[in-house]
């Protein structure tokens, strides 16, 4: 996927700049049940369908030191009062050759920019967070190991819009690690189906990123 440069910010998914950026349909599959992190989750979801978001339109641009990724997908389900929709993009460390299916592993964690829709009570929470993912749902806030909480400077941002049964979300974060990775995984959580953590739809293959 080519990542063209833009001049003006395009964090809003309705920004006209996106009309000129080619998008790519990325197929998604359920995160494998056998890879879920514990017996409880495997038992609870083994016979329950999840990860049914079949594909997502993906486009990406770079603006200065930021990478902006636009995701768009169908979601016409009635909202769930307990769990909200979400999506994320993630990047392996350079040199890692694992598949994106498990959203990282203990030996090869990935950097996940995770967006979640928010309730009115959650307006003070960040729209997106950077997490270190070492498996389905095994997420840790980035920067936590340094003992200083989340790395404010690296915090991704996101703007979302739900219209006509389709979500459009732009997630933005630091370009450098994404460019170094050269590829990206995508994950979508359908809140109306109680999807969260490792229960979701993920891209089975890396999406190559060509950054200038």
């Amino acid at each position, binding site marked *: 996927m080519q990542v063209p440069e833009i001049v003006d910010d395009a964090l809003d998914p309705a920004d006209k700049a996106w009309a000129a950026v080619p998008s790519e349909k990325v197929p998604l599959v359920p995160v494998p049940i056998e890879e879920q992190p514990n017996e409880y989750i495997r038992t609870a979801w083994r016979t329950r369908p999840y990860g049914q978001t079949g594909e997502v339109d993906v486009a990406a641009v770079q603006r200065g030191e930021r990478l902006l990724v636009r995701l768009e997908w169908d979601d016409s389900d009635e909202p769930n009062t307990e769990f909200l929709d979400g999506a994320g993009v993630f990047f392996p460390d350079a040199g890692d050759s694992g598949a994106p299916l498990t959203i990282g592993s203990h030996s090869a964690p990935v950097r996940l920019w995770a967006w979640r829709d928010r*309730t009115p009570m959650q307006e003070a929470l960040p729209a997106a967070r950077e997490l270190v993912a070492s498996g389905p749902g095994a997420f840790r806030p980035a920067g936590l190991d340094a003992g200083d909480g989340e790395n404010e400077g690296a915090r991704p941002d996101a703007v979302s819009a739900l219209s006509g049964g389709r979500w459009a979300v732009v997630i933005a974060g630091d370009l450098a690690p994404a460019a170094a990775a050269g590829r990206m995984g995508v994950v979508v959580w359908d809140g109306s189906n109680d999807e969260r953590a490792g229960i979701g739809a993920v891209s089975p293959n890396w999406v190559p990123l060509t950054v200038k």
Partner: protein
Amino acid sequence: MSQDIAGAAVAGQVAMVFDLNKCMGCQTCSIACKVLWTREEGEEHQWWMTVNTQPGQGTPKDWEDMGGGRKDGSPVTGHQPTRAEFGGGWEFNYDEVFYGGKGRSVHLKPTDKGDGTTRWGMNWDEDQGAGEYPNAYYFYLPRLCNHCTHPVCASACPTGAMYKRPQDGAVLRDEDLCQGSRFCMEACPYKKIYFNEARNVAQHCIMCFPRLEEGVAPACARQCPGRLTFVGMLSDPEGPIHKLVNEWEVALPLHPEYGTTPNVFYVPPLAPYRLNEDMSIDYETPRIPPEYLESLFGPKVHSALATMQGELDRVRAGGTSEILDTLIVYNWLDLFGPFTTDPGTLDRTPDKVAVSLTAKRTEPAGG
């Protein structure tokens, strides 16, 4: 050191015993906890400590039908209780009554926000009970996190946020690690974990661990006016908890069949005698059906009740009973094991409080 299913080794286990024969349902424990821990936004519906009337539907409503726990060592899937099932966070029309000039025409009443509020609550069916006059019966059941030896909440947590603290076995959560996935709420069979929507984290009783660290008993225990709440280390052979649970076997876990090995125990209630139709005393038939008590505390409840009745009979005949003397609690501080420090004597400067409030997990969360 013992190893639990969730992978935590603990050096000792803090535990509690509630003597249900003395609980009068005053909710002082509930209020003590609420005032201390759950007063922020997102915590309106949270009552880490509750006292329910039994028989009853409890809180969250019909929690005993919500699944969770373990059977034959394997996790049982469960329902995540909703804010409505907890009863929501009640709000009242204070402004209208006190400041709106309608103090003589409008009564104070809860505001129904359409989310279940005013249709259930933490003590909704209080004093309802069961049975028919003159043999109606009920008793009170204080409930909090059981700080289980095999905490299925921790086993179900994908991030390792929920964990069993090595030094005392308290089940805590590292809120920096919690991502709000709420599998813990599904997995907990006692349904004593709440979701803080404002912060997107799960929350539950923390056994007042900052108080324990300074030798102070948990607020619910220290504030209890009925002298019925024991706190201490389960393995302390000289402590009342070890004696009541392991030696005399009169204190039992709630729903032992849930498979998580709770560390909160209850001395089951001996109700007053039943009355016959002519109002004479029926000495033979228990007022509270034994099968009901067995459904709560397991089959050992019968021997526990028999032991208690035997002790009562001996004392009534002029004898003595170490068990009853222990449960009477002549000395208030005897309730608190090693946690007898008066919190009023402690340095409560803000920095110290901030440090003591951390529940950060210090050992690796993997596994």
